[in-house]
Structures are given as structure tokens and as C-alpha cells.
């Protein structure tokens, strides 16, 4: 086109194999649009009833097994090989934490300087540390400290964070604004920094609760946020209105309908963060603000072993590996739970 004004010159469309091959006449078009003539291939067709048996309208398939959301999640979980690996590991770890005597026959605190940095020998497979304590026994007994701090912190975080998040999300308005600002404030404080400052004050205490409380104080916020958003979406679902119209109270709705429907993301977050609490505890020990002195803990052992890193690296190696395996097991479990509870990946 020679026309200068044309903003978009027409594009020649190359004919393709999809273009109409046989010509169509005006008369034919009229016949089609008219609709009264049956065209070839559009004759009346009725399938025989025998071929396609009729079923009752909207019948319940009683053959299929009944299953709840939890049952379905459990079925998916069971099939996941990662779940089997992680749960075997976790069972062993839990046994170690509950009954360390089953695994190690030495006393972890009975140390003799004669054995300082001694190599492995019969009955002492991992050898001895600087103080002459049996490393194997210390690794086994250290499980209890790490795991109990991890589990206790998780429980505390779920209760505190879950409750605050649920209240903020469910009641909304001013309550939500206030609680959300509180969440924001805590969110602004880095976990480690906050923990170091706070734990300085309880320097000599060797009680695991100080760690649990500190970790909870600085990590409930993420749980609160997740619960809040889950509650926000669950509270607007119609079954709450239905339940209110049946005569249910607001609080009853929160605990009977909204919270159970918000549990899945909470559970996933809880299992995923359990490992990180164990790491945080070990880090605090390592930094010298966590558990001190005669408490058997991986973090303390790692901290003590760092001075012999060049001469006897294995002293540091064993507790570190134990820590890594434990954390890995819990994070893998969290992953599996997430896949099982949320097969479509919506929570992510």
C-alpha cells in the first residue's frame, strides 16, 4: 500500500492448510443459517440404550472407601519414600532422646583427663574429647537437649503464635491492627540478635527453659502471620455463616470451624521450623550465650571442640553430624507433610 496515512498496513495472510478448500455458495450459507434442512452428517442420531446403560441420578458411590482430609493426607504421606526415611530417623532420634541408656553405656559426664583426645577404642567408638569424655556417649545424650528444646519451642510457638494470629485474623478491625503492629515489631528484631541480648541476662543459668522462652519470644511471629492469613480465608467460608444461622456462637465457630480449617498450614510451618529451632539452640550454645558448663548438648560440644579443630577435627565432626542429621530429618518430614496436606501446592 502506498498510503502514507495508514498506521497499520494490512498484513497479507498467507493461506494455510486450515483454510477452506471447497467453495461455499450463498445458497448453501442460507441453508445452513436457516436451520430447517438437515445437512449431511447432522442427521438425527439416537444411541442404543444397551450401549450406554442409564444410571440413577446422583447416586452415592458406596463402593469407594470413606475418607477424611486427614485420612487422604495420611495415605499420600505413607506412599512417600522420603517420609519413610525421615520417620525412621526421627523414631531413632526420639528413642535416643527418651532412653539414651539404650544406645550408650558410658556416662557422658564421667571424664578422665587420661583419655584426653584419645582415639576410638573398644566401647568408645568415637574416641574422647579434650576433657577425656566419651564422644559417643555425649552425642547420644546430647540428643535429649536438642530435641526437647526443638519440640518445646515448637509447641510454645504454635500456642502463642497460633492464638495471637487466630485472634487477629478472626476478630479483625482494631484488634487485628494492634496485633499486626505487634507482630511487625517482633518481626523487625532478628532472632539471633534478640536471643543474644536476652540470654546475656541469664548467663549462668543452665536451664533449657531459658532457651525455649527466648526462641519462642522471637519466632512466634511467623506462625502468627501464617495462622492469621489462614484464619482470614477460612472465616469467610460459607459454613461459618451456616453455623451461625444454626445458632452457633462466634467463639464456638472460631474453635470448631475456623481453626480446624486453618490447621494444615500451621502444621506444615511447625514441622518445617522445628529443625531451625534446633539449629538456633546449637548456634546460641556455640556463641556461648546458650546452655553452659556441665549440660550435655551438641552446641556446647561443638563450641568446646572448635579449639582442637586442627589437631582433632573428629571431636567437632560427630556432634555436628548428629545435629545435621536431626535437622535434616525434621525438615524432610515437614516437606512430606506439606506435600501430603497440600497436594496442589497452594500453601507454598
Amino acid at each position, binding site marked *: 500500500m502506498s498510503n502514507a496515512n495508514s498506521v497499520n498496513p494490512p498484513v497479507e495472510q498467507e493461506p494455510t492448510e486450515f483454510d477452506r478448500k471447497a467453495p*461455499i455458495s450463498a445458497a448453501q*450459507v442460507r441453508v445452513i443459517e436457516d436451520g430447517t434442512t438437515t445437512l449431511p452428517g447432522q442427521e438425527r442420531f439416537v444411541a442404543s440404550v444397551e450401549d450406554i446403560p442409564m444410571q440413577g441420578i446422583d447416586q452415592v458411590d458406596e463402593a469407594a472407601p470413606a475418607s477424611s482430609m486427614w485420612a487422604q493426607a495420611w495415605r499420600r504421606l505413607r506412599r512417600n519414600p522420603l517420609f519413610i526415611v525421615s520417620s525412621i530417623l526421627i523414631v531413632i532420634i526420639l528413642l535416643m532422646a527418651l532412653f539414651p541408656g539404650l544406645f550408650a553405656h558410658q556416662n557422658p559426664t564421667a571424664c578422665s583427663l587420661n583419655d584426653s583426645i584419645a582415639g576410638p577404642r573398644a566401647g568408645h567408638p568415637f574416641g574422647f574429647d579434650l576433657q577425656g569424655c566419651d564422644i559417643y556417649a555425649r552425642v547420644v545424650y546430647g540428643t535429649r537437649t536438642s530435641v526437647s528444646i526443638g519440640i518445646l519451642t515448637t509447641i510454645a510457638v504454635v500456642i502463642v503464635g497460633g492464638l495471637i494470629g487466630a485472634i487477629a485474623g478472626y476478630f479483625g478491625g482494631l484488634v487485628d491492627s494492634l496485633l499486626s503492629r505487634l507482630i511487625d515489631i517482633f518481626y523487625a528484631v532478628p532472632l539471633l540478635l534478640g536471643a543474644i541480648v536476652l540470654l546475656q541476662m541469664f548467663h549462668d543459668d543452665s536451664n533449657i527453659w531459658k532457651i525455649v522462652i527466648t526462641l519462642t519470644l522471637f519466632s512466634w511471629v511467623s506462625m502468627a502471620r501464617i495462622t492469621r492469613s489462614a484464619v482470614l480465608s477460612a472465616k469467610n467460608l460459607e459454613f461459618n455463616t451456616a453455623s451461625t444461622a444454626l*445458632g*452457633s456462637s462466634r467463639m464456638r465457630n472460631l474453635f470448631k470451624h475456623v481453626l480446624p480449617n486453618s490447621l494444615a498450614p500451621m502444621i506444615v510451618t511447625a514441622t518445617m521450623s522445628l529443625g531451625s529451632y534446633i539449629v538456633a539452640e546449637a548456634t546460641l550454645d556455640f556463641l556461648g550465650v546458650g546452655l553452659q558448663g556441665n549440660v550435655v548438648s551438641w552446641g556446647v560440644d561443638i563450641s568446646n571442640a572448635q579449639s582442637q579443630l586442627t589437631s582433632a577435627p573428629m571431636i567437632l565432626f560427630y556432634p555436628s553430624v548428629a545435629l545435621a542429621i536431626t535437622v535434616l530429618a525434621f525438615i524432610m518430614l515437614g516437606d512430606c507433610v506439606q506435600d501430603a496436606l497440600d497436594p496442589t501446592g497452594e500453601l507454598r
Partner: protein
Amino acid sequence: MSAKHNDGFDPRRNVTIHKDAVAPDWDADTNDNIPTEDLAPLLEVTDLSVDFTGEKGRAIHAVDKASFTVYPGQWVAIVGESGSGKSTSAMSVLGLLPGTGHVTGGSIKFNEQELVGMGEKDYERLRGRYIGLVPQDPMSNLNPVWRIGTQIEESLKANHMDVAREKRNALSKSLQEADVKVRRTDDELFIGSQDIDDLVRTTQEALASSHIENAQGKMRKLRHEWVVGSETRWAVAQSLIREGLDEETAWKIAKNHVTGSSMKDRVAGLLDEAGLPDAATRARQYPGEFSGGMRQRALIAMGLASRPDLLIADEPTSALDVTVQKKILDHLQEMTDTLGTAVLFITHDLGLAAERAQYIVVMYRGHVVESGPSLEVLQHPQHPYTQRLVKAAPSLASQRMISAYEEGAQDADAGLAHKQKAADAIANGQAVIEVQHLVKKFKLPHQKEMFRAVDDVSFSVKKGMTLAIVGESGSGKSTVANMVLHLLKQDSGKILYNGVDTSTFNSKDLLNFRRHVQPVFQNPYGSLDPMYSIYRSIEEPLRIHKIGTKESRLKRVKELLDMVELPESVMNRHPGELSGGQRQRIAIARAMALDPDVIIADEAVSALDVLVQDEVLRLLNDLQAQRGLSYLFITHDLAVVRQIADEVVVMEHGKMVEHGTTDEIFEHPEKDYTRELLDAIPGGKLSLGVDL
């Protein structure tokens, strides 16, 4: 120059017009003279089978040996219940099967070209340019972060199809049997916004100099027709000739002043064609600023942007109000008639199929059970499934359902008896729920004035009777229901329950009120807690009101399940395992658990398939006859109202438009709005299943 357009170039490259073949009088009887044997279908699907791979690699047959044909310019409907494979069949034409779906057999021929087994690259060339799609859900099919205009532009660019419209006119011209010869490229030029003023001025001068009568009126008409970015040079010339200008002048004007449009003009033109007024502004808006109907129009504009030969519309208007649906479909029909586009539309609405389609395909569990000319199939259904479907489809011709419990010797007698009883009750009956001058105002964002969602509504529900509130979305009908249920507080007005003002209730009274007035909500997927087993769901009201012991509650749940015709075994199941209709039954059982006096059903059957809807309505009706329940029935579906209601309140924009008995409203509607609603019901005037 002016001679050039007559130089014998025929734009209808592949269209030959057999003028002689046209019989002089154009009646259906003479159609036999027209050779249809050599007419090749546009789309020919033969023995199509589609499988989905389920758990553990098990094949699920979604479509089994389905065959149907679409001719150019024809409307073809596929009907069936959810899960019948109707969408799957249509989507396999586009090569857009979701998830694990794959074609396992049969052939799909488009213009004699086999599509099965074609590569993704070929499909990309096919989609848009040859086959357009109008998807089902207008809410999720537009990208919320892009302007509407950008999204339409994208659909043009994707097909390298800025302006081509040649195919459109090939058919439309053969329709008009016009004998105009134009240069082909001329036909792809649209009026541009830069030219329109000149075009109008020149035309005015030309009209004046040719001494044409009523030039002003004609000019106004032309100005209205000439939509920037939508009208072509050819169309402009034609309209000028029509208005009395000689051919040479007309073409001169058209050639000088229709010189092509920018993409922006084109997008606005497309939106205008789809019936969105003020298209240029609309194009700059985001999907969030559009209502459902407007989004659907935008999607239609996108589907038709590249002038496809075939448009696949998957429930294009199911989510919309009937009046909006009618407008959109009328417009779509107008557009496809001028464009010569064939439409393959999927619907569950038999009336719609009967009204719009020339050919219908009925699918059931993946099979085509019946197909043929749509009216013939729907008026004389032969396959038992089609018969069942037609029987269950509510229409304006249907009558008030009469429960088997009050049926006398004959249906007709029972109908009359019920009518008599209803008339008595409406005239003298005792009101269970009485609503007086109800008003509810909401605060809208960015607006000073309060929005009156419900504006002075009064009615009363008589004991044992059904009152239906009908209206389109936004009419305030659900707000009324929520206020009656005491879930929302009214701003003014009174709601009386058995003569007592509900606003004076203390918490004990309210609990008692809740016990006697029960809701059934619209969404069967949302109104049951997915964590609760069916047993716990039905038992919940008993627990809340602390009724009975564990054993007696179990007995009651069993009774209730029996009442709604579900097996006891569903007790241990969870809502996720049941279909929509089954869940709605559970919701009804839950509502019935406390032996209420009044049930407030908010769109209780709207989300259900025709057959299931029919069953649930029957159940509700039987329960009413057995237990003397009163219903407040909120719905947008007038056909359902006809079947179940004794009294009707029509609402529009929060106001009560009309109030009367069902027969009065349906037979002698007084207000225009009511008439409009009745007219908009698809296939309302057609009587289906005449020999059932």
C-alpha cells in the same frame, strides 16, 4: 483510481456465488433444490475418544466415540450434565486438554485438515486465527494486572492479524449476494481515528451536492455506523452507496478517507463490536473494574478478534444474569451472522440450546446419546437420557410441582386443589415471617452516599406456603435473606417472626428463633465444613441446641438421611467425597434436624445440574407437603420459581418491583422489568418435550 476497484479482482478468492442455484422463493420446502451434498463441513469430529490418566495409570474414558459436525456459520450446542465430557470434546478440538488428557482415537477434521496428532506449532497457528475460544469463567480468564485493551491487542498480535478481515467478508458478502468488486487489501482497512472527521465532512459535502433528501438524518445514521477500528473501507463504501451516493463518489470518499487504523482504534472497535459502549475508555481499564457481563464481552471480543471461522464458547453466559445473557448472546449472534463465524457452544441450558442452535449434541457419560436438529431433538427426544433431561428442565411452561403427598386421584385435580389452598392461604393465612419496609444501606468505597442495597421491601411468608424473591445479581435479594436470618442487621424496618419483632430478641429468644428458622445456602461446596464428617455436620445443630443424647442424635441423623434419600453409609464420609447435589441434600438434612417452621433457601439449587436440581426441588416440595414448612426461596431463575413458589416478589436494585401470586406474575406481569426478565429466559416460549 476510481476505476481500479472495478478491475475484476474478486476478494472472495475461494467463494463462488452460484446465483442461479438460488430458487426464487426462499422457503424451507424448496431447500431440496440446493445441493448440500457437496457442502464440506467446517468441523468434522468422528469417533473421538479422550482418556485421562487417573491414579496408578488407570485410564478414565472422558469421551468415548463422540461424533458431531459443524457447518460454516452454524450454531451447534453440546449439552449434558457436568462430567459428561462436553467440555473435553470441545477442548480437544483446540488441542487444549487439561492435565493428563489425551486423544486416544478418532479424528477431528477442520476444513478437511486432520487435527489429531498435530504438533504444538501447528495448533498455535490454528488457535485464534481459525478457531477462537470464549472460556467459561469470566472472572479468572482475564489477567488482572493488564489493561483490557492490552489483552485484546495481544490476541491480535499473537495471530499476526492486525487488521485482516478478508475471510469475514467472504462469507458475509455471499450472504448478501453482493456483487461488489473491491481490491482485496482495501477490505482490510478500517476507519482510523485520524480520518473520521475528514470522512464525515467529505460525506456531508457529497450528500449535499448530490441533493439527497434527509441528508442530516442519513449522516447521523452513518456516523453511528462508522465505528473507528471496526468498519472497513468496503463497508463504508457500501453504506454510502446505500444512502444514495453513486458508486464512484462513494468509493472515492472511502478510498481517500479510510486509510487504516492504529492498533488502539482496532481494539476499541473490537470492544464496540462486542457491545461495550465507550470502548476507548473501557480498553484502558483493568479487569477488576469490569462486571461479570462486561468481562464476558471482553472475552468475546478477544475470541473473535482474529475473525476465526469457528468460535468455541464454553458456557459463555452461565455465570451471568438472564437479561445480560440475552443481550450478550443476541450480540454474539449478530456478530457471527455478519462474520459468518460458526459457533460451537457448550451449555447445560436446554432452552438456550433450543433457541440458539440449529444442531444439538446431547452427551452423557462421555457418549453422544442423541444428536440432530435441535428443536426436533428437544421436542421429540428419543433416548431415555434426553427424555429425562427434557422432562427435568424447568421452563415457563411448567406448572407448580405437586407433591405426591397431596396428590389426589388425578394430577390436574391435585393442581387445582393446591391452587385453591394456596389462594386461601395467601388471602387469609397466618404469616410466619413478616417483613415491613426493610432498608439496608452499605457504604461503598469512594462514594459519599450510602448505597441502598435493600430499599423499602415488605412481604409476608404465609404458613405452609412458598414465597420466592426473584432478581438479578445486585438486586438485594440475598441481603433480604440474611436480614431475615438475623445474620445482618437492618437499618430500618421490621422483621416479625410469628408476630414478634426479631430486633427485640435477647440471646435466648434468638437461639429459639434460630431453632425454628433454618437456612439452606447457595454454594453446596462452601456451606459444609470440609473437616466435618457428614454425621458431625448434620448433628451440629442438635449439639448447639443441646438436644438429645449421643444415641438419640445418631438415630435422628439416620432419620434425616433417610428423609433426604441418602444411604446411611454417607455418615462417615466427608463433603469432599460427595457431589454438589448430595451435599445440598446434606445441607437440607442439617436444616431439617431441628424440625424448623421456616426454611430460607438462598439460591439453593442454582449450582446444580438440571436433573439434580429437579430432584432437590422435588425433595423440598415433598418436605413442605409432609411437614407444613414455609419457604422463603431466593433465586434468579424464574423457571424454578414457577415450579415451586406460590407467591413471588420481584426485586430490582434493592426495590420491590412487583409482588403477586405466581400465576399473576407469570401470566399478567404488570411491570416492564418483570416482562423483560420473563422474555430473557432462554427458550421460554418454546415448549420442549411435547410428546413426553
